[in-house]
Each structure stands twice: as C-alpha cells, then as structure tokens.
C-alpha cells in the first residue's frame, strides 16, 4: 500500500521537475540557447523569495506576486544585455557565458546568504493532509504545487498556441530572418521569451524553497533534472515535458525507497536507459 503512496509522491515531485524543465525548454525552442545557469536562477528566485518573506513577513506563496515580476524583469535585462550578443551558429559563446553566470550566481549567493541551508516556511499549510481511499494520505502542499505546475504548463501551451505573442515566438523559432519581414523585433522577442522563462523559474524556485532545504550549491543538480525531464518527455512539446518530469519524479522516489543513496542515481539511470532506447538520439531541432 505504501508503494501507491510512493508513486503518488513521485508524481507530485514530477510536477516540480516539469516546472524546472518548462523554462529551459521554452528558451531552447525559441533561440537554441542552453542556459547552464538555469538551475542557479531557480535558486536565486528561492533566495529572493526568502528575502521578501522575511522582510515583509508575508507567506511565501504571496511573495510570488513580487518575485515573479522581479525575475521576469531580470530575465529580459539579462537577455538584452548579455545573451543576445552570444546567439549565432557557434554553440560555445552562449554555453560559456551561461557557465560563467552560473559560477558567478552561486558565489554571489554564497557571499550574501552563507552556505547554511534555508527553508521557506509555509506555516500550517505544510501540515494539511487530504485522506484518499485505501488509507493513503496526500500532503495538501505537494498536491497544490502539482496543480499549479499543470496550470503553468497549460498556460504556456495556451500562450504559445493561442496568442499573437505565442505565434510570434514560434515564428522567430522557425525562421529568424523571415520573422523580421513580418515586422518582428527579434532581440525584443528573445528578451520576452527569457522573461517568461524566468517567471516560470521563479514559481519553481519558491516551490523548491517550500518543499525542501536549499543552499547556494544545489543549482546545477536542478539544471540536470530539468534537462532530464525534457529529454525523457521528448523535445518540443510541453505536455511531454510534464510527462518527463513525472517519470523522473517517480523514478527518483522509487529509487529513494530502495536506498536513500539511490534516489538521484535512479533518475539518471532511467534517463540514460530511455536515451539509449530512442533510435535517433537527440539532435536539437536546428533550423
């Protein structure tokens, strides 16, 4: 019976990983940019939320009202000032610049917040439980986070496939030169894409902060989970990314039940297994 509970935990954890992945997948889809600092930006939003909650003494979920816009603005500025300059045929510049950003962010956070692990306290919400049949109980908070994750991914899908902005983002992703012929300012649109990505990242960061302890050094592993969720779920489609996140979450929780040391390793091994099975391997959709 507790196997069902473990599976449920895995699914709910998968929602968080899908959120990690959605931001990364959007950026890669629109401009072929793999942001090595993606994990550290998740951490940054957690720390910003920490500052906001302690300073204004408000609930972490309310802090989202401030953290999300802040991170979106940071995303737009980062893209226009730094990343736009690195886009082009050669994959090295964006990779190395984002690598430098990752090291910078980790150490800046270390300098400000020290290395001790922190936690965003959600108060009584953390203890609420929902009783399900067969005596399984489900934490209200993880369930809420999963619902929000699904809503965010649904929202991104709607934005991409139902709005003029989404149309423009897909057009720029298909053919940057012809997009300009439509009157699209590519540089601005890339900025908007990074702003959206960091908005999603900030939700993921706050949930991460509520769900578990965090410290400045755990960014890179979050990047790897995001990457694995994208690959397992199949490129390009955000619902696939959700499925990828869930599979990764379940693999990790199952592995964790066998032996706590196997949790992350199990996720990696499932990722590698799925990868070697896929015939064509993984080629980023190059135009």
């Amino acid at each position, binding site marked *: 019976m507790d196997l069902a509970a473990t599976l449920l935990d895995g699914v709910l954890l998968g929602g968080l990983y899908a959120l990690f992945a959605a931001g990364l997948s959007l950026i890669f889809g629109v401009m072929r940019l793999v942001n090595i600092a993606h994990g550290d930006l998740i951490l940054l939003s957690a720390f910003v939320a920490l500052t906001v909650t302690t300073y204004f003494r408000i609930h972490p979920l309310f802090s989202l009202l401030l953290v999300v816009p802040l991170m979106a603005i940071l995303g737009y500025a980062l893209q226009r000032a730094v990343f736009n300059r690195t886009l082009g045929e050669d994959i090295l510049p964006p990779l190395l610049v984002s690598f430098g950003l990752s090291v910078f962010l980790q150490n800046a956070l270390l300098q400000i917040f020290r290395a001790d692990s922190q936690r965003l306290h959600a108060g009584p919400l953390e203890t609420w439980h929902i009783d399900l049949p067969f005596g399984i109980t489900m934490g209200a908070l993880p369930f809420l986070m999963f619902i929000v994750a699904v809503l965010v991914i649904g929202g991104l899908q709607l934005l991409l496939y139902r709005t003029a902005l989404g149309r423009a983002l897909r057009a720029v992703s*298909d*053919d940057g030169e012809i997009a300009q012929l439509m*009157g699209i300012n590519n540089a601005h649109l890339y900025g908007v894409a990074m702003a959206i990505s960091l908005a999603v990242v900030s939700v993921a960061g706050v949930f991460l902060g509520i769900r578990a302890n965090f410290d400045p050094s755990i960014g890179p592993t979050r990047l790897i989970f995001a990457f694995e969720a994208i690959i397992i779920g199949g490129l390009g489609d955000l619902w696939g990314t959700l499925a990828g996140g869930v599979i990764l979450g379940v693999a990790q929780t199952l592995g964790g039940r066998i032996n706590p040391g196997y949790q992350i390793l199990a996720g990696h091994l499932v990722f590698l297994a799925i990868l070697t099975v896929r015939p064509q391997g993984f080629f980023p959709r190059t135009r």
Partner: protein
Amino acid sequence: MPVKLLETRGLIAFYGDFQALFGIDFQIESGETIAVIGSNGAGKSTFLKSLVGLVRTKAETISFDGQAIWGKPAYRIIDQGISLVPEGRRLFPSLTVEENLSIGAYSRRKGPWDLEAVYTVFPVLKEKRTLPGTALSGGQQQMAALGRALMANPKLLLCDEISLGLAPIVIREIYEQLERITANETTVILVEQDVKQAMTVADRVYCFREGRVVLEGRPTELGREQITKAYFGV
C-alpha cells in the same frame, strides 16, 4: 508630377564579405509595377533584401515615402509599409496556414487586406487554413506567402521569384490574382526569372547583370534581342 514612392541612389550591398551590388539607381512611382529581370546571381534578390534591411548596404540615399530608410533595422522598415514575399516562399513550418497569414499583420497597418480579403483572392487557402504551412503544394504555398505579405497592407510589395518551380498554369493563376491586387494602386516590384511573364504585367523593366543595372525602360519600347543581350550579356 506622380509621387516617387521609393528611390535609391548609388546603392551598394554585400552578401557576407562578397559585394553583390555596385551602385544601383532605382525609382518607382506610387501605383507602378516594375519588373526586375536578370540571370542567376545578377543581384536581383539581394536588391530586394537591401530595401528591407536584411543585408549590409551602403548608399547615398534609400528613401521611401519621403523618408530615409537606409540603415534602419528590418522591422522598422516593414512598419513603414514595405512587404517582401521571400524567394522560396519560406512559410513558418510550425504555424498553420491561417497563423502564417495572421502573423503577416503583426505590424498592424490599416488597409483593405485582412483574412477575409485574402481568402476571397485565394479561396483554396480558406479550405486548408488549419493545415501546417508545409502541407501545401508549391503553388498554394506561394499564394499563402503572397497573402501573408498583403496582410501587412503594404504601400510597396516586393515579390522575389514568385513563379519559381511552379507549373505554367499555376503561374498564370497567380499573375492574374496579382493584377487584381495591383488594381487598387498597390505598388509592386517583381523580381522574376520568367521574362515573358514579367513583361506582361510590368509598367517598366530594369535588367540587372553582375550587380549593375544594364537596361531600363518600358516593355513596349524594348526589343526582344535587346532584352536577351542584356539578360545573357552575350
């Protein structure tokens, strides 16, 4: 005195590090249709791309609608009312036919052209509006690309080899629609390899060879040999 919609003087353009145009003087009046002919590599497409700012150029002036547009980024020039139907059509693969048309109106310029107007001119696009752009035949893709450019309600429409790789009857159908389009005084520059087809539609003709204008005039005034000599340079 008819209004000069677009004028270039001493236009030089580069394709990568290769100079493709060597000082083009060109002008077109509002409502006119001009054909630009010339063999492959003569610089026709580069000329259109330099007007919309997609290639590196140097020029004494490129003025459009009384304003200098030289050196402006492409999206600013498009906003002022120039639209280009690119060579090879290049519809957006992940967008449906209707989405490809709607994104043509991204710059939201007012005018007679909207989805309904395009569908009346090209009814087949209405049937196939939910299909992805790539699922259309060559001719239908060309119509969609033309419709996409019209959706921006341009003052000046640039067409780059719209008859390329199309069957003769399809070319005729497209050119008939083009005449209906230019009826309500849209100004058109037509780059065309199919010399015969171009002559039937154009008020004036420019012939390019190796990045220079080698012949210019009204189709009626220019003889067939004159054109062939300018075209092949032999």
